[in-house]
């Protein structure tokens, strides 16, 4: 066994950060702003100022085959560095630069051992729960339209 994971974060920590970033990305700008206000915003500098650009979304032929380009989405991203050294990133659909900046600061704070728990409990968990509720409502509403078709046999009466 000579192979090691080429990252300074443990495997589960890595995926936890991805999940958090996804939760922040899925939140509305208003939700992020409201949560950001609740924080004692730390000192930070911009590594990459909020920037809006395009990502070309790909699909696959037939669903599982070779990739093709479907069309673009607008994406806004931002990278910040806290005075304490942590670098935070944000990527999300849309064009809201304030959301990108605030999300990047939250991501950076989450990486700081003394702030992680607070970020998770105060921001990530409630946002994730609200998003899960919305998704569950869609599922339940869709479920109510489940259909069973019966084939009528021709000439049979």
């Amino acid at each position, binding site marked *: 066994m000579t192979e090691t994971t080429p*990252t300074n974060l443990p495997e589960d920590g*890595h995926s936890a950060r*991805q999940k958090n*970033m*996804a939760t922040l*990305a*899925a939140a509305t700008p208003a939700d992020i702003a409201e949560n950001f206000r609740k924080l004692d915003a730390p000192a930070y500098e911009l590594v990459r100022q909020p*920037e*809006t*650009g*395009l*990502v*070309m*979304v*790909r*699909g*696959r*032929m*037939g*669903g*599982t*085959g*070779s*990739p*093709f*380009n*479907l*069309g*673009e*989405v*607008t*994406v806004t*991203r931002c*990278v910040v560095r806290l005075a304490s050294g942590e670098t935070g*990133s944000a*990527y*999300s*659909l*849309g*064009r809201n630069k304030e959301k990108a900046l605030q999300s990047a600061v939250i991501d950076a704070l989450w990486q700081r051992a003394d702030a992680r728990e607070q970020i998770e409990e105060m921001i990530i968990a409630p946002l994730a729960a609200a998003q899960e509720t919305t*998704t*569950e*409502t*869609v*599922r*339940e*509403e*869709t*479920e*109510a*339209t*489940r*259909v*069973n*078709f*019966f*084939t009528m046999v021709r000439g049979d009466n």
Partner: protein
Amino acid sequence: MYVAVKGGEKAIRNAHKLLAKRRRGDTSVPALTLEQIAEQLSHSVARVMGEGSLYDEKLAALAIKQSRGDLIEAAFLMRAYRTTLPRFGYSQPVDTAKMLVERRISATYKDLPGGQVLGPTFDYSHRLLDFSLAAEDDERTPQAETAETRDEPVPRVTDLLGDEGLMEPDPLTDEDAPVGDLTREPLSFPADRDLRLQNLARGDEGFLLALAYSTQRGYGRTHPFAGEIRYGEVEVEFYAEELGFAVTLGTIKVTECQMVNQFQGSAKAAPTFTRGYGLVFGQVERKAMSMAMVDRSMRWQELGEEQTAPAQDIEFVLSHSDNIQATGFVEHLKLPHYVDFQAELDLVRRMRGEWFEKRASAESDGTSREAAE
């Protein structure tokens, strides 16, 4: 040919002002908000995002408002806007099997794993105008029924038949093989299926609908079944170089259509079912179906079929599907063509002169011949 002209600045400025006033309409009527358009005209928004090839509901709503509801003009605005933004890169291919399904139907299997859910659809409604929507105080909040969900995977229907070898497998290239991109290289021929699908995905709904319809009516032999249509949210993931991992950018709504066609088999391949594929932004079922049918038609060469119909003519289909290009070329005819027309005018005058001269001399020839007889 269009030759640049000068002048008309004031008239143009005033026409712009008049357009702005007419666009707003009667000011005693409240102005539309972008939220109203995005929420309540979602099919228009989806169409503009698809044909503008840019998924951003707010932008599409703005484009619709600015264009007075002219959806091709709105798609044009989206295409123009995208040129102002840098390209960050390509997403990882979306996985439609993991879709948060809001609608899923199959015309080929009534009892397929994961079942069928109708979702929000016009399919089973009488096409009767609902005058209750016209009421000024339409403040009712419609309630949807809910039911307890089941935790059941919803595999793509084409994967089911695939198990038996009855369904052709999806083409799989090397993951690192280049993928054609019409926003980087203009369309050229021969066009492989990646370019064709991108072209169709942003093609005009009406054009694709008409072509798909033509294949049903006998212009090209396809007898398609709607193997599966699904609509819902998929996650968009993007590999961020500087982070070294994929980030989820959010979710977009897409409609996917798998059309299934019989295939007689050839010397090379056994009889099987073949497929056409449709994938579009938003809930745009009509276009997803049309796209799948036209995609299948254009595969005639690869499957060793005969080319007999317009929908199979790759160059014809792909060159005329883009309504931004089409409207540009058709509508440019409104621009001054004075120099061109002047030249034509001179030419037609000369030809007429010659024609009348010839006739006159033919007549006088005839008269002199008669006199001689």
